[in-house]
Structure formats: C-alpha cells, structure tokens
C-alpha cells in the first residue's frame, strides 16, 4: 500500500482493503499452523475451478447481491438498514405461503405472485423501522437490528408449526417442499430465470440510483439532510421509500432462495446473510457495479469455505475472521485515520 488511500479512489480503496485483510488473515493462519498455500489453493478450487464451484459461488452471491443493493439504496439516503436478514426471512416465508397455498396453478402465475408477495412482505417489514425513524427519530440501527430477531423467530414458527414438514426428522426443522414444477433452479442455484431476475434487478436499481431525481437527490440528502430540507426535499418520503425498496429487494432474495436452491425453508438458514450484505454494499462502494464484484467475492468465499474441509481441516470461523478483518479495516479507513497515518508515514520517509 504505497499510494495514499485518498488517491486510490473508491474502487482501489476497497481492493486494497480486501488484499490487506487477506494478508492479515494469512498471517494468522500461518501462525495457527495452516499452510496458506494449501488454503489458498483449496479456496480457489472451491470458489472457481472445482466442478460446480462457480455455480456455488453464484448460488451464495445472488442473495447477497440483492440484499446488498437494498442496503445501498438505504445507506445512500443516509439510513442504516441492517435488518436485511429479517426482511429476507419474512420475504422467503411469504413466497412459500404463495407457493404452497395455490396448488395446481401454473408456475407462470404462481412465481410472479410469490415474488410480489415476498417483496411486499419484505418492504412491509422494513417499513416499520423506517416509519419509526422518519416519524419519531428512532435509531434505525437499533430497530432494524432487533427486527432480525423477530424475523428469525417468525421463520422458526413457520418451519416448526405453520408449514412444518411432518416427515422431517433432522435437527433443524423444515417446511414442506414446494412443487418441483415451481422450482426456478436446482440446488446449484444457477438458471436462466435466476440470472434474468438478478440482471433485471441490477439494471433497474442502477437506473434508479444513477438516472432518476430520486437516486441523485437521496444521495445528497444522505450526506446533508439539513441542506436537502432547505431545498424542499421530503426527507420522510425519501427515507420511507428507501426503506421500502431495501426491504423489497431483501424479500425478493428470499423468494429466489425458496424456489431456487432451497426448494423449501429450513429454520435459521444463511444466518450471516444480513451482515455480510452490509459489508458487500460498503466494499462495493454503494454502487451497483461495485456490489456485483463484491457479492461475487463474498459469494465465492462462502462457496470455498464449504468446500475447504475436503482439502484442509480449516474451521468455518476462518471466514468470520476474514469478514471481520475487512469490516474492521473499512471502518478504520472510512474514519480516514489509517489513511492519514499512512500518508504521514510516507511524508516522513521522503
């Protein structure tokens, strides 16, 4: 990291941070007695080169991407929605209710309905903290965080009581599966339909953020709400809309999960999704293109971690370590303390 952080631009900064995190974690792994080369080789295989590996990267990256662009919409407008997980669960259950509740109807009717239901449910679930924030100034970090617990418990209730699969015997409770005819992807998660939905979502959100008055003015409001108010921006409306869109995208991710790789709902699945999505949004620089890359990276990590036990006995917490290091470095540098320290060190050695 010879160049100053500020000169790197947002893309370079994110790349530099991720590289630095990988180096730090590599050091920790070496000290713990793992061979970094073996681990790196295993990760590459698990994320890219092994049979079915890139499909698994896509399978884990897809929901991350959808939740993360939702987080980005809210964060650009100045609202920290970290309730992605709860909104994702609520969306997934809504999709499943439609999928199991309308037996016999053709997929072309059921799937769009289920997606709409999932988006509506996610949006509604995000609306509550959003409304509390714009109406009463309640800190949305707290309320969205707490809403994750409600979403998690709701998912448990659905899987263990409402739609419980009576034949299930595993440790985790699960619901009845949706009909095979409704599935949009197999366990590997890649299909023309899922790719189509992701591409459409990416284009629409990009248009919204970069090419509409809402996108541009909400970004200004996110940086200076006082100035935006003087200009006549309706902060309450923009904030609510941002929360609704954020929740809707997380809900949509839930629907894709139900009709795609999962085929049903398992209690407490993908528990890291909400926080990782926040990280993806920030590493991606809060813009759609960057989030595509960041989601691919973190999706690949997830896929690699599930594959790694085949080549080396690395514990799953290694991924948490890497995610945590990236989060820490991002936080530190956005306070620009590290950036300044690096700049000064260089100035002295000149």
């Amino acid at each position, binding site marked *: 990291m010879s160049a100053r952080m500020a000169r790197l631009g947002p893309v370079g900064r994110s790349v530099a941070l991720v590289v630095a995190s990988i180096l730090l974690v590599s050091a920790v792994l070496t000290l713990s007695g793992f061979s970094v080369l073996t681990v790196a080789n295993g990760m590459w295989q698990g994320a890219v080169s092994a049979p079915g590996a890139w499909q698994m990267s896509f399978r884990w990256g897809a929901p991350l991407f959808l939740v993360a662009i939702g987080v980005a919409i809210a964060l650009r407008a100045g609202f920290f929605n970290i309730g992605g997980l709860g909104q994702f669960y609520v969306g997934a259950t809504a999709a499943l209710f439609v999928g199991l509740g309308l037996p016999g109807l053709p997929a072309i009717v059921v799937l769009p309905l289920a997606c709409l239901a999932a988006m509506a449910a996610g949006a509604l679930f995000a609306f509550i903290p959003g409304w509390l924030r714009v109406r009463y100034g309640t800190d949305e970090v707290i309320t969205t965080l707490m809403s994750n617990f409600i979403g998690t418990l709701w998912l448990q209730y659905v899987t263990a009581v409402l739609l419980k699969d009576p034949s299930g015997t595993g440790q985790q409770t699960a619901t009845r599966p949706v009909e095979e005819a409704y599935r949009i992807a197999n366990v590997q998660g890649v299909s023309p339909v899922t790719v189509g939905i992701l591409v459409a979502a990416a284009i629409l959100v990009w248009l919204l953020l970069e090419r*509409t008055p809402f996108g541009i003015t909400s970004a200004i409001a996110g940086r200076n709400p*006082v*100035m*935006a108010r*003087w200009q006549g921006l309706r902060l309450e409306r923009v904030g609510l809309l941002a929360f609704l869109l954020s929740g809707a995208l997380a809900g949509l991710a839930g629907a894709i999960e139900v009709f795609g790789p999962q085929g049903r709902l398992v209690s407490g699945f993908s528990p890291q999704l909400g926080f990782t999505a926040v990280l993806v949004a920030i590493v991606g620089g809060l813009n759609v293109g960057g989030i595509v890359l960041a989601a691919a990276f973190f999706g690949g990590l997830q896929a690699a971690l599930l594959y790694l036990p085949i080549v080396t006995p690395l514990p799953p917490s290694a991924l948490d370590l890497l995610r945590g290091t990236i989060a820490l470095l991002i936080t530190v540098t956005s306070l620009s303390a590290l950036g300044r320290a690096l700049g000064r060190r260089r100035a002295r050695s000149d």
Partner: protein
Amino acid sequence: MTTEAIPSAAAVPPVGAAAALAVHGLTVRFGDLAAVEDVGIAFAPGRIHAVVGQNGAGKTTFARAVMGLVRPAAGSVELAGRTLPPGDVVAARAAGIDMVHQSFALPPTFTVAEALELFVPAPGPVYRRSTMEARWERVLRDAGIEASPRARIRDLPIETLQALEIVRALAGRPSLLILDEPTAVLPPPAIERLFARLAAIRATGVTILIVLHKVREVLELADTVSVLRHGRLVLPPTPASELTPARLGHLIVGSDATAAAAAVAEADAIEEAVAGAPHHAADAVPVLRVSGASTAAAAAEAPLRDVSLEIRPGEIVGIAAVEGNGQRALVRAVVGLDTLSAGRLEIDGADVTRAETLERRRRGLRAIPFDRNSEGVSATSSLWENVTIGELLRPAPGRRFVTPGRLRARATEALDAWNVRYGSVDQRAGELSGGNIQRLIFSRELGADARLVVAAQPTRGLDLAATAFVRETLRDLRDRDAGILLVSSDLDELFECSDRIVVLLGGAVAAEFRSPFSLAAVGAAMVGATEPGR
C-alpha cells in the same frame, strides 16, 4: 544584503533569525487549480500581520498550509528558523502554531470546561471535575470571558465560542496564532472586543497572523498588511500606516474598475441610504403576506409572536434584530422548515400555511440560508449535485430520467455565469472557499424564476467585490418585481438595500421604518428603547 531587493510577488524577502514565520515558494494545488502559487513571505515576531484578499484569493488556503492542514505541492514553512514537515498539523502544533478556524469545532453537548479539557488535558492520571472546572474558571476569568465552565457549548453565543476557541488555541502556548476571518461571524461591538483581545495577546509576545477582507478592519487592527490576489502575493508585509483604504482596495481587487470602485466606496464607509421612490406598486397582491404568525418555542431563540408583515412585488424588506430575537424563526417559518402554531402565510395570494417547502419553492420561493456550509450546500457532494438539486426536486412533467452529463453541463453554465472559481464540477463543494460556496448558492437560488427570495446574511464573510455584487443582484431581482426578505446583522447593508425595515424584538414586530432610515431610531427599536410605531 549585497544585492538590492526588488519588491516582487515571488521574491523571497530577506529572512534572518528575526522572522517569526517565513514561507518559501509555497504552492498549493487542488486538482488543476493553484489556490496558492509560489508565495514567499516573512513575518516579524510579536506583531499582528493581516493577510487580505478577495474570496478565492487563497488567504484561507495559505493559512491552512502554514498550519499543516493542507499539504503544499511545493515550498516550505519555517517557524523561528526551523523548517516544519509539510502538511503535518501535529508537528506544526508541537512547534508552536495554533489556529482559530472560521467555523468552530467545539462539541456542542460538552460543557465549557469539558471542551477545553478535551483539547488541553491536565497532566496526571486522576481527574476531578471540581478541580478541572476551577482551573478553567481561572483561565476564563483571566481572559475576560463571561461564561461559566459548567455552561453547555450549544447554549453559548457565537462571540463567546470564538473567545473560547482563542483560549483553547492559546492554552498550548503557541508562538504564532492564526485566525481565519474571525470577524465574519461577529456583530460590530463584538469585533471591537475581539480586536482589544488580540492586542492584549500581542502584548504577551505572541505573533498573530490574521486573515481578513474588510479594509476598514485591516487598517484598524493590523501592524502589517500583505495582499494575495489569485493565489499570488501582490503586496509583501507593509506597515499599515503606509497604506490608505483606497490603495489597499485597488491592490485587493486588481484591475477590475467597478469592483475597485465598490471597494473604495466600502472602505470610505459611505453610510448613505438609497433614498428614492419606492420601486413597488402599493396595491399589488403581496408576494409574501405573513399574518399573526406564531411558532412553538425553540431552544436557542425567541419564537415568533403574532408577527404580521407584507412584501410587495419589487420590494426589499429588511429584518433588523439583535441575534436571537426571532429572525431565524421567521426565515424557517417562511421557508417551511417549521410550521406555524398560529397565523397564516401567503405567497402571491395563495395560502401556503400548511404547504411543504417543495410546494413553496414551486411557487417561486428561493432561500439563501444562514449557514452556507451546513444549510446551503452538501459539502461532501459534488458541485453539479449541489447546483442542480433544485431542478431535480422540481422536475419538468414527464421527465422521469435524468442524464448526469446534461446536469453537469447545466452546472458548469450556472457556475461560470456567477464567476465561481472551481476546478471541476465533480469536485466536492466543501473544497471551495467560503465566498465561492456563497456564489454557488446564488447561482442555484437567484435564477430568473425567483419570485420570493429569503436572503439570510447573504454577504456574511464575503469580500468587498462579492458584497457589492450580491447587493446589486438583489436590487436587480427587485427591479424584476420579485419580493425580497433580507435578514442581516449588518445595518449598513439593510439601510442600503431595503425599501422598508421591520424590527423584531423578542420574536414580535417592534417597529417598522421606511427609507430614509435613521440609525438612531432603528438601533433604539432593536434594543427595545422605543414604543412600537410606524
């Protein structure tokens, strides 16, 4: 010296051990824009040195480079013969430089003692609140500041905050104290007190470097004066006694004849009211009608109490009030940021009492806010976003999508028309100088479609030429039949521009005057020394 010194902007003045501060070949760039270019200058110790220039001349950047807050592209800074590492504020402070900024950085929820302690901690591991407060109480008393160490920062008037900033800066025992436009935020009596305070600091042997732009203040306060123009030094430190207001005015604005004339006029302090026929039609529907307006109690200021006033097309109505007597509440109520608890607001005859700011802006309301950095621009957003936010929020019907390319072009056009000095429309607004930020705000607010302009302190902190330009623009708008509500703490400005002046006292209308105005009468009404009258 063996060679004859030729006075030149770039020449480095002779520097011996005697100079408190010497700067050599200092150049600071922001992108392609050279804010300060090849400045060489030396200041003698124990004096007050003024650095003057127009907005964007590079004064503040120069001061920030000396303090190490910006990293120069070239050149060096020497304090008492020791070269400082470039762009290193910690080293600069350790070497004995401190700075009082234009906007203050004390945490609003802290008490006075806590805030000062934060910057200048007492030695030792154990704190006791009572000792800390006693210590700072002594310091405050010695400095002649009437504030309790237990008072909250947010409850203090701006003059006290500035005095605290100076105390904070002096507590590190600097040999050089830099002040950036300290008078811009102060009402006239407080400026006098500030100058007395600075003279007392000079008497203790501290060298003072002060950035100013009002000719009168410069000549009153400073021992030497230096002038920057377009980032270059055009007058090396010269004893103030050798300068006249007219000469200084010319040096500051350069060859621009009208601006120079305006500068001289200001310097000579011509306090003549523009007497003349009212420009407005008396029977027209008022652009703004406020009737019986009251607002809920606010923290820092008197709320409005049953305020009624009208502004007719082609009329400038000035609001004169001592800070905290309801002028903020009035502006916020007219803009639509606070709703009235009683009363009625009309724009061009339409009831807007319950209308949102956006609706009022659609009807032609434009506003120049009190605080340009927080209310006027988003400092971390790009210039083009700051300029075009108005039209983005009021899009033409059918325009769902926008093209940033077109918006950038529009912003370029607007900024160029208002002579804003900037590098690129993608640069952040916070990188502009104070005067250029104000021009940016004007370019957004004072377009042809402005119908009712609320101008709060529109010239605060601006230099002579920019001030003349703003007043001219307001008069142009009036001549195009707009109505203008002018709030200013500068009575000269109110007298020069207003057709009528309404005095607010404790949130209520205390008096109303028509041009020509009497300083004695308006001043008396502002402090409640007269009966309400017309």
